[in-house]
């Protein structure tokens, strides 16, 4: 493992949310609390001291229960957020596909949304013109192109989102629960497509609640729990086993 191959490196990354400040209490309450000296902000660390590195061609799986800090970490990796502590070094273009189905505009048609999303992912107009029919074919949305987006079923929305997103050719690709969209047949199709992208040399980060997917596709695993890093290892099988044991133990404890 030489240093030149490192595509992404996170060192001691911590991300803090503030609780109880402006966004929760509004201007009036903020002023009165400031005046009476009762103003206090509670820190909430969504991620605490997370470190990992991935090399070219790696596929990193991130596992953890809800609220473990997975999505927040990905936002920091993609540059939408900045870590409160620690640093992240990226090599190459990062494209993050987070919560795919949201961020579309319900009033626009399928076509208009496709172009808007394409533009957000950095595609040029000519590229979109060329690819448009392929996108619609892949998403199986022929005949729906002029419908307002809000009339589509949620499966259709995610399919469109995936079809547009899968055209990207980034150096680092981040997938947050993306592969779990659509029905069975579409899922198989999208997994095949994803494998194709990864084969093309992209370094990938995958967040999934499906341990099977992680086992099958990833070469490294990062396990987060309540913002803390439990494990970062290339022993995918071992880590997944331990994680499943942890989940089973928790389930038993609750019952």
């Amino acid at each position: 493992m030489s240093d030149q191959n490192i595509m992404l490196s996170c060192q001691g990354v911590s991300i803090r949310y503030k609780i109880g400040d402006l966004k929760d209490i509004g201007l009036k309450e903020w002023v009165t609390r400031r005046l009476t000296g009762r103003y206090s902000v509670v820190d909430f660390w969504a991620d605490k001291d997370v470190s990992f590195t991935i090399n070219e061609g790696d596929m990193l799986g991130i596992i953890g229960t809800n609220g473990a800090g997975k999505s927040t970490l990905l936002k920091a990796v993609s540059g939408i957020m900045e870590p409160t502590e620690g640093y992240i070094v990226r090599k190459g273009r990062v494209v993050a596909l987070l919560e795919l189905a949201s961020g579309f505009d319900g009033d626009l048609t399928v076509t208009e949304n496709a172009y808007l999303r394409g533009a957000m992912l950095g595609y040029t107009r000519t590229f979109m013109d060329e690819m448009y029919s392929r996108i619609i074919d892949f998403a199986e949305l022929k005949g729906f192109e002029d419908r307002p987006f809000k009339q589509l079923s949620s499966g259709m929305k995610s399919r469109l989102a995936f079809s547009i997103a899968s055209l990207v050719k980034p150096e680092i690709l981040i997938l947050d629960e993306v592969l779990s969209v659509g029905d069975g047949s579409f899922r198989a199709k999208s997994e095949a497509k994803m494998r194709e992208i990864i084969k093309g040399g992209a370094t990938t980060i995958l967040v999934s609640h499906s341990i099977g997917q992680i086992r099958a596709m990833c070469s490294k695993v990062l396990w987060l729990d309540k913002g803390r890093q439990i494990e970062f290892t290339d022993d995918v099988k071992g880590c997944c086993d331990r994680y499943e044991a942890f989940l089973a133990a928790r389930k038993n404890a609750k019952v």
Partner: protein
Amino acid sequence: MFEELVKRDFKKKYKRTILGMGWSLLSPLLMLLVMKVAFEQFFGRTVDHYTTYLFCGLLTFNWFAESTNGGMRSLLWNASIFTKVNVPKYMFLFSVNVQVLLNFALTLLVFFAFCAIDHVSFSWRFLCLVFPITTMLFFSLGIGMVLSAFFIFFRDIDYIWSLALQLLMYGSAIFYTVDKFPPSMQFAFSMNPVYRHIAYIREVVLAGTIPSLETHLTLIGFALAAFLAGIFMYRHYNTEFLYYV
């Protein structure tokens, strides 16, 4: 991306309206009509071309109001985009302003038509109008940026700003004249950027003269101050917005 945003904003704004952009023209014209009927008896006696005088004020003020109101909300409305994709956040505000600017341009054409009807003599000096329009553009962009940043943190800004705009409307001498006021009040007017822009346009259109160098510098000063403040807010809070949406 910018192009697609602009298109989206247009489509959304005029969706399912019969008149479409006509509404954007109609509202200042109706305001003009109401003000003319209401105030001509009081102020129209001492002001020549009172309709044009009114229109100068309304034209400028409406642009400013629309631009800052739209700009204020632009960032929050696009929260679902910028929390998922790393895009330059000023794009949303600029996109709204393209539309507002176009409305303004249309209204300006109508304004010139009214000038002709009102027998205002056109001259080459009208070209100077490019100057206040440019400074006003940067001024309102800057204010819009500052407001949109605050709007993310305090939703109260919405109400505060609509109140402020109302006060500003009455304080910008849209339908009255300022020369009867005492010097201290005159000074207050001279500190009002919107009024200064209106006054510039009136001087060119109604008096046919080019305002002083000092006026030009003041307008540049206002525009620069607002725009820099806006850039500062966006730079400083670029990664903070996310936590508050």
